[in-house]
Structure formats: C-alpha cells, structure tokens
C-alpha cells in the first residue's frame, strides 16, 4: 500500500477509533452531532419548508414530468380495424331523435327508462330497470336506472366491462344539461356490439338517472353494498366482476376534442394504462385529446410578450392549469364525474367527454374510438395492474411520477415534525440564573422541568371530540331544516374552546413547562403525521393541508397580550372552520357525504378543524 493510502487509513482510524475510552468517544461524537443539528435547527426547518414549497410549485414545470407510456403489453391499442360506420351513426341519430321527443314532452324518468329498456329489448339484449330512492337528508331524490347486458359470446362471462352514460351531463359539474347524445351513443353501441362475436367478456350498458346518484344506486346494488339512506331495487340481471368502465358524456351538438376526466371519489385514480390507450387510439383516429375540457390556451394577456411566449412559461402555465383542476377534484374527494363512483369497487374507469364545439367531429369518430378502446380492454387477461396508480397528469400525454411529486409534501411534513420535536425538547429545559452563593456564579444554568403531557393529551383528545360533535350536527337532519344553524354552529365552535384555559390554569413555576409549548409540540407532530399519511392516499388533499397548515401552525405562539392572543385565536379558527360559512361549499359537502360517502366533511370536522383549533388554543393558553 502506498503512503497516501496508509495516511488515509490512519486518518480514518483516528476519526472512527480515537484514542482513549471508545465509549466516551462515541458519546462525545453523538453529542457533537446532535448539538450541531440542534444549533442549526431553525435554519434546517426553514430550508425544509422552502424546499418543500418550491418543490410543490415546480411540479407543473416540464422538468419533473415525462411522457406517458404503455406498461401492459396485452392491451395492443389501436391494432384493429374499427367496424363502426355510417350505419351506426344513423342508428345513433335515430335514437337521438327519439330521446329529443321524450325530452320535449317532459317525460318522467319512469317513462324514459321504459323507452330505453324497450329499445334494448328490441335490439335483443336482456334489459331491466332499477328504481331507487334516497331517504334521510336528501329525501325525495329518486329515479330509475336502465341497464342491459350483452352476454359474452366466447367465454363464461366471469368478467364484465361497463359502458355507461348518465342522463345529466357533467357540464359545470352536473348543472342540468342533458347528456342526450351520450345516451344515444350507448344505445347505438349496444346494437352495434351485438353483431360481433369477438367479445371476451360481458358488456353491461347502463343509463344512470340523474348525474351521480343513479349510478351510485346501481353500483351499490350490483356489489351488494347496503347504504343506510338508500332504498334501491335489487338488480334482476347480474354479470361477473367488472374490470373496466367507460363513461360517455356528449352534451353538445358536435365535438372538436375529446376530454379525459379521471379523478375518483376520495382521491382514487384509475390505472394509467386505460387513459394511455384511449388517448393513443383517439389521436390515431384523428380526434385531438385534451385533459378535462381545456381546449383553449390559457389567457396570459397580462404578462409581457417576451415572458408570455417563452415556451417554458407557456408549458408551465398550461400544466399548472391542469394540475390546479386536478387538485380541486381530488382534494374535494368528489371526483370529476360519474366514473369516480366506479373506483371504490376496484373498477378502472374514466369519462370520455366530448368537448362541445361546432365541429368537425361527431358520432362517427366517437363511435370508432369507443369501439377501439373497448376492443383494447377486451384484450386484457387480468385486471389492469402494470402501469401507474399514483401519478399526476400534467397534460393528456405527460405525467409526474410519484417520486417526483411526493417529496414536496413530505419535506414540509418533516419540517413540521422537526419543529414539533424541537418545541418538545425546548419545553423540557429552562435557563435559570445561578444563585450568588453557588460557585462559578457568573453564568446561567439549564435545568430540567416537567412537561404537562397528560393535560396536553386531554386537550388534543377534547378538540377531536368537539370536531366529531360538529360533524354529528352537520350530518343530522335538523341541521338542514332549522334556520341559522351554520352561524350558530360556527359561534359555538368559536366560543366553546375559549373555556379551555379556565380548566388548565397557568401556573408560572420554574419546574413545570408552559402547557402551550407541549400542546404546540403535539399539534405539530400530529399534523405532520396526518399530512404524510394522507399524501399516499390523496396527494392533492395532503398538498392543500401542507400549504394551509405548514407555516401557520409552526408560527403559533402564546401571547402575553390578551387582545393579540384573541386576534390570533380568531385567525386560526377562521382558517380551520371558515368553510362552514361558505353556503354552497358546505351544502355540496354535506350532499357528497350523504349520497356518495365522500370523506371530506368528516375529515374536515374530525381532523382538520381540531388541528387548527389546537394551534388557536396555543395562542390563548
């Protein structure tokens, strides 16, 4: 070994095995390390926060995403000659005409379901209807679903694919525009697929009444799930396990682009291969694809020209718009349409949305694309599992992998965790001036003090119980029927916690840490835990939480000035419970919870509000 190597070896040995007591050296080394980190904790926290926020806001940039690709070789998209032709377009036009007559005659849902069922039966498919009615909060919400099943001509029918359309289109999140052309497409498709024997699984055609509620009732019955506030007729016809579902939404007169809507209830996403096949087939057929209905470029007129026309900026703006829409759908838990209901039963589904336009495409292109997509899913030998379930689509053909977006939120959560641990350690120590008669009397000493853990834990538990009580009131019948319930509940949620400081009188002694410090430590650690765990389940929600809670909870501190404390307290309560006063949002959330079982309302009440309430209490204790 040469001299250099020996010297290096000696250096390493000195470093890892210094002379003297190895245990002492180990303890010293550990202390040096810890104090090195502890002294720079504020900087470290700040760096983590900044890195996290910068990362979150750079997710839309073109540096972090990549093009989509197929992972499931069995799919073979676009490898077939489509048989759908002008005859089928004529069928669709015919059905559309009949449906328009029904619409114009103000037919009840009973009548139109009878009509659609008869059409299915005339085509030669076993068909049936299903009545449903919601009770409880949404009393009187009822309707009739129609469905028909094409028995697989080739195999036993242990698996099935669903083609569905809801009576009301998803335009403006179900504002009442009818999805007549979507229904007509499904009817024409059912007639079309009957002619071919190439189907390897049953195909179920469903026309769901209403926007989301009809399909919810049908799917619950199909999967034997009982929903306490739903009375649905049992299904007369059943089939096998459903693997994939296509939901067709065609509200306009013609279409220029096909849009992909894919977010499901409670933040679930379908397998990416399904979306990939669709967009590949659609573009090969000649119809451009967009994500959502974003066919127009974002108007950036307020920016100077040279910035606006920079390709990087343009990409960023477009992708940020897509992601923002995604975050809104996913974080709200409501999903972006009827397809969202399928994901809870492990069915990969998305909505093909025909973006309304004056042209140039119509039933002909749409039918060919749906046929080809159907035949692609027909090739599957097992459930879609290969490609991604955790992804963010930045555009219809680009996506961000989990490794490129998850760390942003985790960094913020780690920063909060470090903050919490730091406060926890700080609470245990206090600096005290040495008495005169002690030796070395010049300085200060650090002495340990007791941390009131039990009190802080009971406050934390209490806030969550209060949140649960709020949730109980919000989801109760009386809440809708009585006047002024929201302001009253808000005031109650504001005033009740003010009693907490009375139960825990502050004793200013040297040997007990202030309760607010321990509460803040628990609050930060708990929030960090919640954020990092939610990030796997529903990334958008976790990102919203990280932005809403990250910095605010970290800066919570008790104030000696009473008025200042109250101002801060109010701000935290508004942050945590302000959504209650937004009438539309609240009603929507209650409806979503009641009918679809979206978790956002209980989450906000039982987890989010208590977390910000704890920060609020830190300010006044």
């Amino acid at each position, binding site marked *: 070994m040469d001299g250099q190597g020996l010297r290096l070896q000696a250096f390493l040995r000195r470093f890892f095995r210094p002379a003297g007591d190895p245990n002492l050296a180990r303890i010293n080394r550990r*202390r040096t390390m810890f104090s090195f980190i502890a002294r720079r904790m504020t900087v470290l926290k700040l760096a983590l926060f900044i890195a996290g926020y910068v990362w979150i806001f750079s997710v839309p940039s073109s540096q972090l995403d990549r093009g989509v690709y197929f992972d499931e070789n069995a799919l073979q998209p676009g490898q077939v000659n489509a048989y759908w032709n002008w005859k089928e377009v004529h069928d669709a036009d015919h059905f559309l005409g009949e449906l328009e007559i029904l619409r114009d005659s103000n037919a009840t849902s009973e009548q139109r379901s009878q009509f659609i069922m008869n059409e299915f039966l005339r085509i030669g498919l076993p068909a049936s209807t299903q009545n449903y009615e919601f009770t409880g909060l949404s009393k009187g919400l009822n309707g009739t679903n129609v469905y028909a099943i094409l028995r697989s001509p080739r195999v036993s029918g242990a698996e099935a694919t669903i083609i569905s359309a809801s009576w009301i289109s998803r335009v403006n999140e179900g504002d009442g525009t009818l999805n007549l052309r979507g229904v007509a497409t499904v009817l024409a498709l059912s007639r079309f697929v009957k002619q071919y024997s190439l189907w390897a699984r049953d195909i179920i055609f469903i026309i769901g009444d209403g926007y989301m509620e009809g399909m919810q009732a049908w799917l619950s019955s199909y999967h034997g799930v009982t929903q306490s506030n739903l009375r649905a007729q049992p299904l007369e016809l059943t089939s096998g396990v459903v693997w994939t579902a296509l939901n067709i939404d065609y509200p306009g007169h013609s279409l220029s682009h096909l849009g992909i809507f894919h977010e499901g209830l409670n933040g*679930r996403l379908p397998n990416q291969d399904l979306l990939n096949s669709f967009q590949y087939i659609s573009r090969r057929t000649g119809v451009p694809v967009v994500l959502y209905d974003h066919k127009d470029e974002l108007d950036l007129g307020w920016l100077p020209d040279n910035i606006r026309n920079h390709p990087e900026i343009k990409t960023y703006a477009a992708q940020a718009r897509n992601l923002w829409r995604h975050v809104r759908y996913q974080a709200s838990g409501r999903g972006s349409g009827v397809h969202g209901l399928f994901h809870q039963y492990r069915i990969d589904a998305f909505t093909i949305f025909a973006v309304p336009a004056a042209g140039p495409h119509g039933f002909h292109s749409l039918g060919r694309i749906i046929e080809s997509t159907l035949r692609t899913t027909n090739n599957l030998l097992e459930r879609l599992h290969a490609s991604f379930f955790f992804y963010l689509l930045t555009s219809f053909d680009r996506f961000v992998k989990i490794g490129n977006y998850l760390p942003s939120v985790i960094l913020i959560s780690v920063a909060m965790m470090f903050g919490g*641990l730091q406060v*926890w350690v700080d609470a245990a120590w206090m600096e005290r001036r040495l008495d005169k008669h002690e030796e070395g009397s010049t*300085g200060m000493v*650090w002495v*340990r003090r007791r941390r009131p853990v039990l009190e802080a834990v009971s406050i934390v538990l209490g806030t969550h119980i209060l949140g649960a009580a709020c949730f109980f009131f919000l989801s109760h019948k009386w809440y809708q029927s009585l006047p002024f319930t929201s302001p009253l509940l808000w005031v109650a949620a504001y005033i009740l916690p003010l009693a907490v400081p009375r139960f825990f009188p502050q004793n200013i002694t040297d040997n007990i840490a202030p309760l607010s410090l321990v509460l803040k430590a628990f609050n930060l650690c708990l929030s960090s*835990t919640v954020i990092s*765990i939610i990030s796997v389940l529903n990334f958008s929600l976790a990102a919203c939480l990280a932005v809403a809670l990250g910095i605010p909870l970290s800066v919570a501190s008790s104030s000696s000035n009473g008025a200042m404390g109250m101002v801060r307290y109010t701000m935290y309560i508004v942050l945590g419970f302000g959504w209650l006063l937004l009438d539309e949002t609240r009603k929507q959330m209650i409806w979503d919870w009641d009918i679809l079982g979206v978790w956002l309302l209980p989450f906000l009440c039982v987890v989010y509000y208590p977390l910000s309430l704890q920060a609020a209490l830190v300010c006044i204790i």
Partner: protein
Amino acid sequence: MHWLSCRKTITLCIVFRVLFALGLDFYLSPPTSYAYYADNGDKVVEFINTGPGLLSASSPLTLYANLKESLWLYQRGMDPYGSGIGQVGVSPLYLAFSFFPTIAESGPLKTQLLSKLFGIFLWTAPDAFSAWFLVRIWKARASSRTSTNSSSSSITFVLPLIYLLSPYVILSSLARSTSVWENAILLGAIAWACESESEFKTKPKLNNSNSKSKSKSLLFLALRVHLSLDALILLPPLILILLGSPESRLAEPGPFALYVAKRRSVKKQPEEKLPNEPAENHLRSTILRAALNVLFEFMVYWTALALISTLIVGHWRWMSTTWGTSLSLPSMTPNPGLWWYFFTEMFDHFRPFFLVVFNVHLLMYVAPICIKFQHDPLYALFILVGILATFKSYPTLSDHGLFIAFWGIFPEVYPYLRHPFPTTLVLIHSALLQPLFAHLWLSHGTGNANFYYASTLVGACAGGMAIVDAVWAGLRIALERHGKRELKFVEGEEREIVTQQ
C-alpha cells in the same frame, strides 16, 4: 378506596365497550334489515376484519372464522384436524366449548338481543379479567415499596383505562380474535405468580393471596402455552418471579441468589448475617431444586392439558396443526409480524434453515434478558412480552396492546427513557399506516404487498425502539441511583445523563 375506584373504572369501561359493540352491531345490521336475523355479531367481525383491522386484528391462529369452522365440524362429528381442511387449527380445548354456539342460536337465548349480548360478553369479559389482573400485578409490585407516592394510587385506575380503551385491544375484541382470551390467561398467570409466596419470599401484603397462587399461575401459563406455543419463552422469567419477587428492584441490581438470601435472612433469622461461602453454595442448590420443582409442576399441567386435548379429539395429530403452526409457519396470511413476507419471498429449499433461524432468534433473547434483569424478573418478563409482540410468527394487534398496557406497571423507568416521544410517534404512524396500506393493497388494488409490509416494518421499528428503550431505562436507573456518575452542571451544557432527545 383505590381498589373500589379501580373496579369502578373497569366496570365503566366494560359498559362502554359493550354499548359500543352493540351500537356498532345495530349500525351495521339495523333491526329492520334481513341481515339482522341472519347473523349473530358476524357483521361486526366482518366489518373489523375487512375494515379498520384488515389483516392485523387477528392472525390465522386466532381467527374467529377458524374457530367457528372447527366447532362446526366437531359438532357434526367430523375431524377438524383432518387433511385438506386447513393447516392451521384451533386448540382442541376450544372444542370442549362446542355447546356455546348451540346455546347462542337456540335454547334459552333465542332472542336476538340476548344472543348478541352473549356473544359480545364472551369477547369483552376476558378484557375485564385482563385489566383486573394488570391491577393486581401492579399492586403486588408496589406492595413492598416503602413510600407509596401519589402517582401509584392513580395508576390503579389508569391501568384498566389504557388496557380497556386501547384501540389495539378493542379491535381484537370486536374481531372476536381468541387472542383476547390468551392475553387474559397470560396476565392471570403473571398476576398469580406475583402474588404467590415461596419459601424464599415474604408474604405479600395482599388479602387475596394464598398458597395456591403458585399452582394457579403455573396452570394458567401451561394453558396459555397450550393455546399458543410462543408463551413458552415467558416460562423462565415466570419461574424467577415465583422463586423471587415481583417488586421493583431495578435500582439495586445484583445476583438473584443474593436477594433470595436477604429475604430468607429477613424471614427466618433477622439477626443472621449474609451467608458465607458454603452457605451460598447451599442456597444455590436450594434455588435450583425449587426451580426444578416448579418446572416439573408446569410440565405436569402441560402434559395433562395435552392429554385432555387428545381425549377430546381422539388422536395426536392436533399437535402439528396447533403447536406446529407457530414453529413452521404453514399459512403465510399477511399479518403485522415480520415472518410472512420473508417466507413468501424465499425459495422453498431455504425454508427449514430460516425457520430454525427465526425460531432461535426468538429464543435467543430469553437467557440474556433473564440474566441481566435477574434482580427484577417482572421487568424481564415485560421485555420478553415486547419481544414476542414484535418478533413472533403470528402476532396480532392485541399482542401490541398487551405490551403497551404493560408499560403502565413500570412508572419508575419513565424518567430514564431516552426517546419515548419519537417511539410514540413511530407507533402512531404505523397504527395509521397499517389499515391504510392494507386497504390500498387489498380493496383499492392500487398498492401491493410491499406497502403493507412496509407499514408493519414501521410497527416493528416502534416495537424495537420501545424494547431498546425499556432495556436502557431499566439498566440506567441503577446507574443513576448509585451515583456512579457525577452530575455536574456545566454552564450551557446538558447533563450527561440526559442524552434523551
């Protein structure tokens, strides 16, 4: 007074638990629905096993469905341990209770509500016993303490709370996992061991202790070992408790024989000095003889139970499907332990070797921990309970619940723990991640087995951190109390002892 408050706490908790279980039952199958007439609490079991307790609430060894299947087969004269029925069987002793389902479904309990209450009672009562035994263990440990400080009285009422209201225990009980019974039996064995008196120890100042405690304790441990073999590693510390005492002596470490000698001298001739060399040898052999006696008694009980089981079933083959399972891992159903994933990934020809490795790994801890904590065998037992919960082949949530509740008995170590807060946080992470990842894998279909295994690894980390910290704190007390380290307050510097956080 305190005894009363502890009973009140247990009663209140049990009432809450029963109401909770009943409410959940009504919520899941409302009286108007068809399901209400069809099931007897099975909806709740199904809800727990597919919902919050997915994969974690019960292992194949303690699964309610397995128990029911075995009982059903046995009632109809079929052999529950026959080939092709399953590799994992329940203990034959449970089969002796095959009249229970009959009672629940017909006869005097025809009413649905009564039958439901009976089912709930059967799976809540053991928790009440467990909580009661925990309090008795604590009392036996604290009885000899000279100064009863204020915290010790509150512990008698906190202990039942942390056991009965622990989500881990509640989930297992709602899932009707037989592990809640196993916990109760184990705690019973420990409680009686703590209360027993031997020739080496003074009589604990308890009203309910009697000379039969030792036999009861050994019988219960034999029963526990019979139900699930893993408890065998708790036998050595239990014998030490039976010969020694459960009281807290963490602060004064020393050889086991020394304490026995001290006690003996106190008991017999207070004026006698500590034994000299030949006397010590004599003492050693006395202790050894007593230990062998205890071991023999245990073996007699165990053999008797095995014979009874054989009489019930009619053949010996039940042994391989009950005891054999915890050793040879025939069912690789995912559970919160560390074994299943490892053995799923492995080539079959390595299996026997690694089975030996994993089993020996569990055994490996027994001797060192019993030797190191020979002055406080209850503490050694506590650490081994933690090791079982973390490393055994088919752990469930209730094992973790038992370990967590056990912490309540040792308040004297709290100030010496190095990282209680991070351990708690890791535990909370794992407790939240486990159901979540199990669902991502099995019901959403978006995750896979690695997700769930990762979350159980986090749980194992929490368990490991807790065990390491318990060992650290248990040894550190002595160091602190003996003042071997100068506690110097240096300006602006932490005390050396407090390396924590």
